């Protein structure tokens, strides 16, 4: 009973259900989270079971959603907010950046804001504009926020539990193109720490670091590379703020090469921060510069171009080759 094979979206659903059951202060709010169960069905059935007072269809106004969630948190609730798509978080950006992120510090710790903002993110699903963005760097740059992204069903379940339990605001990026990927969830396991990276494949020649939707791709790339006789280690970073630099450093001290992969544009992306800091930490270990594979400095393209825009197997392997060529 404790171990189930669940699609990632369903694991999130179970996690929300668990939180609603366990803590009467937990609320789920957002556009269409009620009867519809969210456009991705992550909140499916929750309103039916927990009522309209706890699973709340909100007016169509993201600033309002986050702003009222802050107020509810001040009143002692633990709101879990759904933003319908990555591209629609920006009307709430002011509330997130100037209020949610800073209020705990503004009060010198006297109040806490346990608000989770769930954001389905990333591309690869053939969607129209604004439905495939990867804006994680825009949140990770902001002190006061924590930013995480699960890559599989088990992490989806547990990281959401931990995010809801956290007394800090957490921006929870859900890899929407992996919503339907199944994975085992042990609801009685002892979960790892929310902000620690995990080595998902061991290797000795090069480290691939990724999070969210790109972990699966990196595992595929490592498998192909293995056929070509290259031992590639894959790290699932899991958290973009904080970043588990210790884990990356340890891996790079072993492999001496690092490639960071994300869907977000490379320019000013999380790969930049990782490259800069790891180069500082591992200057004498690195045999090649940290390479980055990610989106281009262009608006996310129409669906028929997204395969070219997004990091794919070939682009990751190309970066692996380039790194190993140093």
């Amino acid at each position, binding site marked *: 009973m404790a171990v189930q094979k669940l699609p990632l979206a369903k694991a999130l659903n179970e996690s929300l259900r668990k939180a609603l059951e366990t803590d009467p202060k937990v609320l789920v709010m957002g556009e269409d989270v009620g009867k*519809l169960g969210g456009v991705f069905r992550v909140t499916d059935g929750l309103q039916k079971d927990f009522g309209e007072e706890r699973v709340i269809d909100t007016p169509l*106004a993201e600033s309002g959603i986050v702003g009222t969630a802050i107020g509810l948190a001040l009143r002692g609730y633990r709101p879990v907010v759904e933003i319908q798509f990555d591209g629609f978080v920006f009307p709430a950006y002011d509330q997130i950046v100037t209020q949610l992120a800073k209020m705990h510090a503004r009060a010198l710790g006297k109040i806490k804001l346990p608000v989770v903002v769930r954001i389905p993110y990333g591309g690869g699903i053939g*969607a129209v504009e604004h439905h495939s963005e990867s804006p994680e760097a825009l949140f990770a740059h902001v002190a006061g926020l924590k930013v995480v992204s699960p890559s599989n069903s088990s992490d989806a379940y547990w990281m959401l539990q931990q995010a809801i339990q956290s007394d800090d605001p957490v921006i929870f990026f859900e890899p929407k193109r992996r919503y339907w990927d199944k994975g085992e969830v042990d609801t009685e396991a002892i979960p790892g720490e929310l902000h620690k990276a995990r080595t998902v494949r061991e290797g000795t020649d090069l480290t691939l670091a990724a999070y969210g939707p790109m972990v699966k791709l990196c595992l595929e790339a490592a498998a192909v590379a293995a056929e070509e006789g290259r031992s590639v280690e894959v790290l699932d970073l899991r958290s973009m703020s904080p970043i588990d630099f210790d884990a990356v450093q340890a891996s790079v001290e072993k492999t001496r090469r690092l490639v960071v992969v994300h869907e977000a544009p490379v320019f000013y992306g999380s790969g930049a921060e990782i490259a800069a800091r790891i180069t500082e930490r591992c200057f004498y270990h690195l045999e090649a510069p940290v390479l980055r594979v990610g989106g281009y*400095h*262009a608006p996310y*393209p*129409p669906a*028929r171009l997204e395969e*070219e825009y997004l990091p794919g197997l070939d682009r990751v392997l190309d970066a692996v080759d380039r790194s190993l060529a140093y």
Partner: protein
Amino acid sequence: MTVEGTAARKPRRSSKRTSASATKAAGALSAEPQLVQLLTPEGERVQHPEYDIDLSPDELRGLYRDMVLTRRFDAEATSLQRQGELGLWASLLGQEAAQIGSGRALRDDDYVFPTYREHGVAWCRGVDPTNLLGMFRGVNHGGWDPTSNNFHLYTIVIGSQTLHATGYAMGVAKDGADSAVIAYFGDGASSQGDVAESFTFSAVYNAPVVFFCQNNQWAISEPTEKQTRVPLYQRAQGFGFPGVRVDGNDVLACLAVTRSALERARRGEGPTLVEAFTYRMGAHTTSDDPTRYRLDDERAAWEAKDPILRLRTYLEKERLADAAWFEELEAESESLGKRVREAVRAMPDPEHMAMFDHVYADGHALVDEERAQFAAYQASFADGEDK
């Protein structure tokens, strides 16, 4: 689509649905909405003290033709989506009168800011319907030239175009032109801060803009009561300009009310909010499943208020169009469907390099660098094949 029926024909009143929590005091504020209607669901022509309209048989037939062709185009797009030719489609089914009525009220020099559903308005503007399909097919994000038909690109971020419309209208006023601007948005959009800010700016600057809200009763799965506890047209008054609710399934009333609001804008009297009370007969988009959140009954009641049917009844009753004319229109419809189908199937995928185009008007060093890298990367595969 043209369904007979005797179900309740009076527009459902928002107040009926006001959530239990709404109080009497609030209820008192929401007086009976004054729904402007010129053509009843039964096809009877009725008078209205403030709004009237006198249309020639040609014009009446024209409106009917617009609605029929728009519906046909829309149906074709829906089926193209089912066939996998489009990634998504947002159907306007049921909203033809709101769109054709308001669209036909516009002058060429007026400017339109649509949402993603104004296919009927696009039709009135002379936009080639196939142009609308590129973004739903995934070959572009719109891509048409807004200036060639004064019809802006579809905007997906809810409400944001209302500010663009307001700014554009401020510019029209600055130019001393007597054009007007119309901004479309939905009942859900009414909750966005941007829409409220556009009301504030347009009122303060007295901008010649008409806010045309198609209240189709639903924002995806949320009924209008999740956005407001009083009728939406009343929102305008608190910002200092008039709001009016029109039967959004009555093409004549939509034309009359929009024309009057546009004239008001031209006369320098500033913005007007028009709430077109209508219904989204289909799913939100082809990705949506409305059976999860609404009852068939409701849809059935609205079918009896179909905008096309009522005008057809009127045209027939008044003998303004004969069977031959309807048949000809049917044929025209079919050929439009065929043309659209063929055009979509022939729509090429964009070149890969196109993703680097038009990021900037004046260029950007990084885009140039990435373009070159990408070209070299792609060439490396070609090289590989050669070997």
